[in-house]
């Protein structure tokens, strides 16, 4: 076994002469000495990772703020603008719409995602035959490339495509042009995103439900509680930390929706499905205005921080950590 490997290493003199039993009783002073020696190793071990994070995450945040204060073309020399980019964003009706679209997406997507993932997690109890296979099936689109998923759905939504064709042959009615109709386009993106995205939460909730102690639910059952009550009153409460965590991660990622509108609708029709990240990409890398794009990114960052903070403050009301 691997554990034996260090024993094979040549022992320094003296080490072998300490009987194992004695080393333990000698204990505290020696351990303190070791811990003292470790103080040098700890920071050294954390350094490469910490340095990388500083350079590639913390520094860009600061750089982003600086860029947002400049007129910063993709190529060429930047010139200082002050808050000009922010002023422009706040007075730009398109940016306003983009923010509203993103919020609309989040408001539709997050609850749907949570309901579907929680529902399936509750359904797939250990008693379900082939539970493992179901879990893997529902997880597939979470792991296949988003671009591929979106391309496939583009075809499903196409007039004459899978959905339209099925509807026509079964009911004789043709489906709306999901991606070309501004009343449908956002909903189409939300549905596709839920299909693709609920797998993670389902697995997290499923594991949390498995961890609910059986004696609690059994006791409640003997007291006459039915399955429904047990789920709402006991299980849901016990897994609330997981739900909190899942909600937070889903919220953060859903604010960053990009590939779905980028490939499904290009933000259209009009700009009815354009999102903040799509706006950042277009301004920065299509119209070469990195300063404006950076300002938009900072606004997104502040929105996400705000939402996360509200979540953390609100958690006291419904998250139970003491099981």
């Amino acid at each position: 076994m691997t554990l034996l490997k260090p024993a094979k290493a040549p022992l320094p003199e003296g080490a072998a002469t300490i009987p194992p039993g004695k080393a333990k009783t000698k204990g505290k002073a020696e351990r303190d000495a070791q811990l003292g020696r470790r103080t040098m190793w700890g920071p050294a071990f954390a350094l490469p990772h910490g340095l990388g994070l500083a350079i590639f995450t913390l520094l860009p945040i600061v750089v982003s703020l600086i860029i947002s204060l400049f007129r910063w073309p993709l190529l060429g020399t930047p010139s200082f603008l002050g808050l000009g980019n922010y002023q422009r964003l706040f007075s730009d009706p398109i940016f306003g719409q983009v923010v509203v679209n993103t919020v609309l997406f989040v408001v539709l997507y997050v609850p749907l995602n949570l309901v579907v993932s929680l529902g399936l997690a509750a359904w797939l109890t250990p008693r379900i035959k082939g539970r493992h296979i179901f879990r893997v099936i529902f997880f597939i689109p979470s792991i296949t490339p988003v671009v591929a998923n979106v391309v496939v759905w583009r075809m499903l939504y196409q007039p004459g495509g899978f959905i339209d064709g099925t509807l026509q042959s079964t009911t004789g009615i043709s489906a709306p042009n999901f991606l070309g109709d501004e009343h449908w386009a956002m909903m189409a993106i939300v549905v596709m995103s839920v299909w693709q995205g609920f797998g993670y939460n389902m697995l997290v909730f499923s594991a949390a439900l498995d961890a609910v102690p059986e004696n609690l639910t059994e006791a409640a059952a003997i007291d006459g509680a039915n399955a429904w009550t047990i789920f709402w009153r006991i299980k849901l409460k016990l897994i609330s930390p997981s739900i909190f965590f899942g909600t937070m991660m889903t919220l953060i990622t859903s604010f960053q929706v990009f590939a779905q509108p980028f490939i499904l609708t290009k933000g259209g029709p009009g700009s009815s499905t354009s999102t903040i990240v799509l706006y950042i990409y277009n301004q920065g890398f299509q119209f070469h205005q990195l300063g404006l794009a950076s300002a938009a990114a900072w606004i997104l960052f502040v929105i996400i921080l705000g939402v996360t903070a509200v979540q953390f403050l609100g958690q006291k009301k419904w998250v139970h950590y003491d099981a």
Partner: protein
Amino acid sequence: MLETTSRIRPLTARPRGSRAPGRRRTAKIRPAIGYAILCLIALLFLSPLIYMFATSFKPPAEIFSVPPKLFGSEFRWQNYHEALNYMPFLRFMGNGLLVSAAGTALTLVVSAFSGYAFSRQRWRGRNLVFMVFLATLMIPQEVLIVPMFVMMQKVGWVNTFQALIVPWAFTAFGAFLLRQFFLGVPQELDDAARVDGAGTLRTFLLVMLPLARPTMAVLAVFSFISYWNSFLWPLVVINDVNNLGTIPLGLQMFFGQQGNQWHLVMAASVISMAPTLLLLILLQKHLVKGIVTSGFGGR
């Protein structure tokens, strides 16, 4: 939910036998109906992928049919041939493999060390630094795209593999995952190694790291997949898609140029999904475990 009713059955088993037989039958039929519905949901859920697969073998003229058909009049392998001829998907796979493997290796090395530092070593400011690490998880990659691009411009990394590899290898997720693991290793193991004369570095490399192999595997899978599927950053930083493109980038370009050739697009989609699907089937246990212990791997 059904679990609880079955558990208490033994208590009520005797009176139940004398009850109306109809009730007993529903108790058996209900789960069966539920199971059938579940299977139906799973099938419906998979239908986009089934449709993709079916379409990838159809002749172009038969793609949009009412009612939709699963099979065309012929089984057209040629679609794959044409898609591969039109765009170098095998090269994209090779590029993806290179980028993902290098990125994963870098992630594993830095995360193993920092995870150990945050769990088994005591040093001043450790908890504060770890909090900063965790806080960076809240920073969305998308927000960093513009400054990262400018930084890549400054060091001349635009349109290079290292621009795809290096910037995203330092996610705090790895440190978090390995810290969780190392916290669970009994202190006696450190002590034993130390008594045997092993120093910190040797204890870490020869005792701790081998123990952490399963967790490292989990991290590796997630890291690999997130590199492989990454889209926005390659879209921004890679101009020469034909030579340096990865799968998502190539598929996006293919779709942009051949968007109405659905038989080819679907073949290309199948090609794009295949490696990750294979990975999922082979490593499902690691994946499930990773998500369960961390809650956010790869997101």
